[in-house]
């Protein structure tokens, strides 16, 4: 879309503005009737609106929105620098800047023309500062506020428009929407005022009042990177932008963001609308006003000892005043970084509160976006590090309760849609009196404003500075992990003074480092809800799968005679014996493999073993991300119809099967990183009646990830023991297994087990 750039003289001096609907601006500045109508509809006195004290200098040519915004910024900078300028000078400046903005080559030629035009304008005393008589669409126009009455919009139209705006503004709170999305929102939530082509005018009126913030969806970045374009919605830089000829703004190289295309086209001439700047977060205030104590908030939810300790810590973090959060930084650099971040956010916040004034004094309320590395840890974050099966979901409730109780808005974001669907009824039951929106691709609540929002991470793109608490579940899971776009969205969805709580069983290394340096406050839950230690995986060094999984199939005599494959065969039968032992004790067996293509052969191989294990071949199956019947198979596995399930990392999270043992084949594979190994090991021993599930890493050689995973598990168990969270069992009932000791059934030499 195109926008018009103009400069208006207020009491305080010249102000540069741009508008996506000139008629609205024209009415507000120059038409007294319309102005009165607007003031009446909005509920303010007309005298309160700033008044144009002189003429308006307007560029006749409409520029593409992105260029208009940039030109407006430059013009404002040029105007505030100097003292007092006449209309002619401002017009010249405007024209020079916009000639630049349009990238015209003949800059100087234009300038010459301009001066000519100005001279003529002065001499004749006309309203026109046209560059040349022939080109009526070039140059600047001087509009005087004296010539009221000739604009035919009238008071009634203004009043209606302002009343519509009053309906729109609460709907836009905390939103960050493209124009098409804003119109969909209006059609859904306020069908009475749905207006097809009038939307830009309405939004522009909101921008004039300073209650809506408009801007180009793709625009120049913040000062350190002020020369590069950036998508304001998803934060993607030049790499994700494609420049194409655009029919809606007429530019030959209009940038489109390809990263967030799935949620609508964000482009340099597309309008991005943000709601009013947020009010101060109620969390700090609540703490000051002696709200409920953290312990009281947590007591209600029937948590276990360890859960309660951790959620109390988290709630205290939420309710704490900013000063207390700052003391979390122990080392000097962390302290300074945190306090600098605080300072920055508070500055942003003050800017926001200024914008909230009746009529925006700043040119057009800018769309501030978080800048810097989106993957960096946000200031005022808290990590809730709870082992697999600790009951993370239960620990969320007191946090949400604390925020909702203080009157704030909370968001729970999770990478996966089925988690959203599973959690929604539980949350609705826990907070029956709160409004809740459940968002995922294609959900019906898309435009609902609610106290509690449950969403997949992609949906965060439609919010801006909306939430006092952003809870991110499984922060190390696909697709959230490592995606700068989603991190940016999560940072942008939070109010500048809000808080982020990150939940994970396996936080990435950078985050663990931040915790140990004291840069990131953290609470650990080292024990499962049933208060038994985590099963420690033991490592079984054996030949890689390719050496034995196809061994029975090929009748290659030479291969069969091969010494190393005979060893591999024996190692495989030892593995079968272990699996058999697990099945014999009545456990469900998870077999994890690195690649989907390995599943089929392995299922066939295991089915041949089934009679020896005393189960039917039909109770052995495999599933992967490409399997449509995955859900049914997991159900069958949970119901014990299936006894052995071969799968990939797709089932590493969120699957709870009581009484299960885990075997990870080819655990040395590069695909299995530390987090994946810990998560897969976390599938075992989750229920209280069988807390000692077995976990076996079958690897050709030890890897760093393998050792790291075991170290994580043992460290958590140690922490649980020293914290006194474990059940007090007699010594011999506790099964503390050391990998090497139990590995002794068959001990292949390292050399044979290693890579060949």
């Amino acid at each position, binding site marked *: 879309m195109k926008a018009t750039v103009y400069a208006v003289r207020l009491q305080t001096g010249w102000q540069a503005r741009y508008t996506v609907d000139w008629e609205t601006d024209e009415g507000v500045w120059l038409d007294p009737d319309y102005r009165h109508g607007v003031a009446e509809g909005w509920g303010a006195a007309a005298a309160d609106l700033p008044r144009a004290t002189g003429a308006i200098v307007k560029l006749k040519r409409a520029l593409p929105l992105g260029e208009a915004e940039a030109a407006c910024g430059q013009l404002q900078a040029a105007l505030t620098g100097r003292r007092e300028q006449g209309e002619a000078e401002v017009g010249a400046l405007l024209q020079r800047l916009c000639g630049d903005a349009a990238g015209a080559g003949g800059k100087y030629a234009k300038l010459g023309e301009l001066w000519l035009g100005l001279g003529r304008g002065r001499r004749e005393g006309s309203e026109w500062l046209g560059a040349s008589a022939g080109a009526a669409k070039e140059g600047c126009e001087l509009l005087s506020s004296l010539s009221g009455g000739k604009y035919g919009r009238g008071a009634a139209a203004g009043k209606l428009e302002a009343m519509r705006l009053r309906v729109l503004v609460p709907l836009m709170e905390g939103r960050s929407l493209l124009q098409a999305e804003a119109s969909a929102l209006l059609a859904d939530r306020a069908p009475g005022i749905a207006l097809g082509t009038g939307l830009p005018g309405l939004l522009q009126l909101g921008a004039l009042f300073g209650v809506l913030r408009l801007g180009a969806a793709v625009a120049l970045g913040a000062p350190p990177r002020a020369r590069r374009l950036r998508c304001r919605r998803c934060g993607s830089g030049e790499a994700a932008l494609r420049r*194409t000829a655009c*029919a809606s703004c007429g530019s030959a190289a209009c940038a489109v963001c390809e990263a967030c295309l799935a949620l609508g086209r964000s482009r340099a001439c597309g309008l991005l609308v943000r709601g009013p700047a947020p009010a101060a977060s109620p969390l700090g205030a609540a703490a000051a006003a002696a709200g409920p104590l953290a312990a009281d908030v947590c007591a209600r939810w029937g948590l276990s000892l360890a859960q309660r300790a951790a959620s109390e810590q988290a709630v205290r973090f939420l309710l704490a005043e900013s000063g207390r959060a700052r003391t979390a930084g122990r080392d000097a650099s962390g302290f300074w970084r945190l306090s600098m971040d605080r300072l920055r956010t508070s500055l942003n916040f003050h800017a926001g509160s200024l914008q909230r004034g009746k009529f925006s004094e700043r040119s057009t309320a800018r769309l501030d976006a978080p800048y810097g590395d989106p993957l960096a840890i946000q200031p005022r974050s808290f990590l809730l590090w709870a082992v697999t099966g600790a009951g993370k979901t239960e620990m969320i409730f007191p946090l949400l309760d604390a925020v909702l109780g203080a009157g704030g808005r909370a968001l729970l974001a999770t990478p996966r849609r089925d988690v959203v669907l599973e959690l929604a009824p539980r949350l609705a039951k826990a907070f029956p009196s709160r409004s809740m929106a459940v968002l995922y691709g294609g959900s019906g609540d898309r435009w609902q404003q609610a106290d509690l929002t449950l969403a997949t991470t992609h949906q965060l793109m439609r919010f801006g500075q909306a939430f006092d608490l952003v809870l991110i579940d499984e922060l190390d899971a696909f697709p959230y992990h490592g995606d700068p776009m989603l991190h940016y969205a999560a940072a942008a969805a939070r109010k500048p003074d809000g808080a982020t709580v990150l939940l994970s069983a396996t936080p990435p290394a950078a985050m663990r480092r931040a915790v140990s340096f004291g840069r990131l406050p953290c609470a650990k839950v080292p024990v499962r809800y049933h208060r038994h230690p985590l099963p420690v995986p033991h490592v079984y060094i054996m030949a890689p799968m390719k050496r034995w999984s196809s061994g029975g199939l090929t009748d290659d005599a030479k291969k069969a005679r091969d010494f190393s494959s005979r060893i591999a065969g024996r190692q495989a039968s030892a593995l079968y014996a272990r699996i058999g032992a697990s099945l014999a004790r009545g456990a469900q067996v998870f077999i994890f493999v690195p690649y989907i293509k390995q599943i089929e052969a392995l299922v066939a191989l295991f089915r041949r073993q089934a009679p020896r294990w005393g189960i039917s071949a039909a109770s052995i199956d495999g599933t992967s991300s490409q399997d449509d019947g995955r859900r049914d198979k997991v159900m069958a596995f949970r119901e014990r119809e299936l006894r052995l399930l071969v799968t990939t990392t797709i089932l590493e999270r969120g699957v709870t099967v009581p009484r299960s043992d885990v075997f990870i084949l080819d655990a040395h594979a590069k695909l299995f990183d530390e987090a994946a190994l810990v998560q897969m090991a976390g599938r075992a021993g989750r229920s209280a009646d069988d807390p000692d599930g077995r976990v076996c890493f079958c690897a050709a050689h030890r890897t760093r990830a393998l050792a790291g995973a075991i170290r994580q598990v043992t460290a958590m168990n140690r922490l649980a023991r020293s914290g006194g969270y474990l059940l007090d069992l007699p010594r011999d009932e506790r099964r503390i297994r050391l990998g090497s000791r139990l590995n002794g059934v068959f001990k292949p030499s390292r050399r044979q087990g290693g890579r060949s």
Partner: protein
Amino acid sequence: MKGLLHAVYGLLHPVLRQCPVCLREVRGEPAPSPVPVWHPEARMRLDRLCGACATRIPWIWAPMCPVCGRPGRCGDCLRRKLTHFNGVRCAVQYRDEMKGWLADFKYRGAERYAEIMAAMLSGAMERLRADFGGAFDLITAVPLAPGRLEERGFNQAERIAAAVSAWYGIPYRELLKRTRDTDKQSGKARRGRIEDMRGLFAPVEGFAVERQPERSLRILIADDIYTTGSTMNDCARAILQAAPGAEVYGIAWSRT
């Protein structure tokens, strides 16, 4: 420091190429799959597809209808009373995958598809040249309604026609305009489409092409999708109205 390490890493890393359709990163050269396209530029674009996407394209290898090039029995051409164009060829069959691609390109605005679809359209172009002889004088695209053009930001037919025009050296000209807005054509019965289309297109003002007395002018219309042929027919009618005696041909990316 991190940036420097990243640069070094980039040098050591094997070259990954992104499939322009599914955006998956493919390592090395994909196995060449047969395509009915000769032009090197177009072939180069098609080679960027990953193996899975390339094999999923339902090319029309053997057109059966002599008029519209449908690879099966064609009722539309038999039923049509007055056919203004001389011949049309289409590149692919409009199956589910292709529907997805077109929806991504047209409605979701994924402009990265433009080149791939233009390369595919080249298949229709070459088939048309083989069947009706080469040497076209002008190429044009089926226009969009102004409102929709502004909303969408681009005309998909024009985008792919422009690429084909550059590759085959046929000058691109805007020859047509829409006289009125219609609803979207998708989701309409045959009868409705034909009714809708009548008199929908008109030649643009100032449509004057230099007459070539020795032979008649050959004009090519490009479109993204050919369903009943009513759009193409009306466009051909409009062109003939402005340039009587011209030969009008059509290429379309897909045929239902």
